[in-house]
């Protein structure tokens, strides 16, 4: 469980995080989403005690992070992937981390195996690809078998295989009852892994809701259909208040009524349908719109 209460961070005159409050409960993957500069990394740095809040508090399992004597056993953190020294081997990078929290060498080998770097342990980190560096960072986060996992932009630099692997890993961690929070500025990444979404813009909370609910709340439903009787059916749909656009090749996009309604109207009028597909706006579209002018949507999100 991570809990933020009215968390604020000001740098000089600039407000990076502005009264942010939310909870991240265990047992699910929570996505932490916002455009670049929205305050995600600053928030994560405050959660792990790197930056001091100007006001408010962030706690993990009811405690301030700095109070943990062996924090890696409580919270696994992936910050920017560059936060390693290139001249050191992957094994030694994890070894110092392990020793700092009283974890032995075996834990290091297990963590390397778990992220698929078992053979690369003796290689220097400086020669790693971005994807391998990310895997090393994730290994570091898992080193102490923590109940809370915080990952800042973990998908950056991973290839398709890596993303699939990470998705499986996050599911597994949440399934084991751990708290998983991962940030990203790319909505499509979240669509694949998160159960719950916390969206921020300009340091303020825009939305805090389950992924499904988020989509349903913000997306305008539409239905695509293909029919040889298009002309006739369009007239019917328009007469009942739906907006219809023809996209060519006997295809139409209907906005307003859902797919079930459109289908039954077609049956009612003996219209032949070749295809009928319900369609939601993609998360990417919703998110872009939500954060384009964050101020306009703040009140809506908080309601």
């Amino acid at each position: 469980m991570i809990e933020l209460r009215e968390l604020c961070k000001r740098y000089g005159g600039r407000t990076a995080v502005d009264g942010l409050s939310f909870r991240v409960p265990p047992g699910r993957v929570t996505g932490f989403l916002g455009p670049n500069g929205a305050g995600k990394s600053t928030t994560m740095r405050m959660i792990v005690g790197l930056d001091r809040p100007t006001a408010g508090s962030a706690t993990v399992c009811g405690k301030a992070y700095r109070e943990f004597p062996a924090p890696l056993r409580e919270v696994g953190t992936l910050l920017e992937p560059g936060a390693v020294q290139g001249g050191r081997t992957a094994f030694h990078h994890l070894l110092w981390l392990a020793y700092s929290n009283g974890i032995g060498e075996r834990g290091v080998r297990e963590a390397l195996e778990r992220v698929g770097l078992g053979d690369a342990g003796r290689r220097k980190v400086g020669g790693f690809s971005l994807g391998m560096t990310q895997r090393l960072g994730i290994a570091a986060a898992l080193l102490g078998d923590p109940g809370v996992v915080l990952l800042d932009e973990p998908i950056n630099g991973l290839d398709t295989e890596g993303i699939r692997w990470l998705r499986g890993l996050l599911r597994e961690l949440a399934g084991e009852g751990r708290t998983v929070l991962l940030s990203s500025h790319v909505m499509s990444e979240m669509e694949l892994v998160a159960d719950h979404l916390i969206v921020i813009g300009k340091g303020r909370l825009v939305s805090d809701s389950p992924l499904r609910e988020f989509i349903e709340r913000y997306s305008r439903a539409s239905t695509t259909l293909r029919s040889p009787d298009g002309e006739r059916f369009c007239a019917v749909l328009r007469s009942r208040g739906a907006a219809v656009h023809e996209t060519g090749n006997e295809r139409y996009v209907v906005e307003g009524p859902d797919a079930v309604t459109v289908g039954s109207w077609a049956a009612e009028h003996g219209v032949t349908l070749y295809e009928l597909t319900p369609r939601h706006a993609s998360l990417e579209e919703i998110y872009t719109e939500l954060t384009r002018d964050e101020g306009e949507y703040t009140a809506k999100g908080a309601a």
Partner: protein
Amino acid sequence: MNTFRHAVAAEWVKTRSLRSTVWTPLAIVPMVAGMALFVGVTESLQPDDTVLGGSLTGAVLAQFAAAVFGVLVVSGEYGSGMHRTTFTAMPRRSLVLAAKGLVVFTFTVLSAFVASCLGLWIGAWMLSGKGYSDGEPFPALFGVALCIALTALLGLAAGVLLRHSAGAITAVIGFLMLPGLFAPLFGDFQGWISGTSPQVVLQKMTQTSDVTAQNAGSLGAWPSLGLVAAYAVVLLGFAGVRLVRRDA
């Protein structure tokens, strides 16, 4: 106490697993030994110099290496952003600084002591019977090693305060050299000013003829070493406070 032991273990792994932080302190040995050999071969000593002073000519170079080592132990982390990883693993930053200090001090003091003994052995072997007085090797050899190790701590503090390799190295080397360079401009105060330089303290310890009460003050070698220890304590304390207070 457990936490501190873990922090020391972690910092030692960090230090020994990077080429720069292994070879910089180890380079002290060939520096001192090489200079001892050079002085022995060329007999480039004043007639009133001691064998000890001649043999440890390289100690001044070793002091620079030690300062650089102290800086690198911390500035390397700031350069790569790894300090954030460090402080998430060990949120008690003052403990991290203490652990770094212990590792830096121990590594440097051992390396510098071995270097000084080796240098003296080479010097004694090459210069004995040539009319130079021996000097007092004990406890001066310990003093030399301590002075070099304390200088490494000054480097560590500079690294924490400036967070940048080149800046911190420049600052600490300036601190070592400038008092000695500019002191002659201050007339009667020359001894007071150059006497505060850690480099001059090292020269007092090695008993070279370059150092006189007139140009380096009348404070003896050991009280002067106490002064360097005081610098290290004050600077590290200040660095510790800054480290704890600022955002990482």
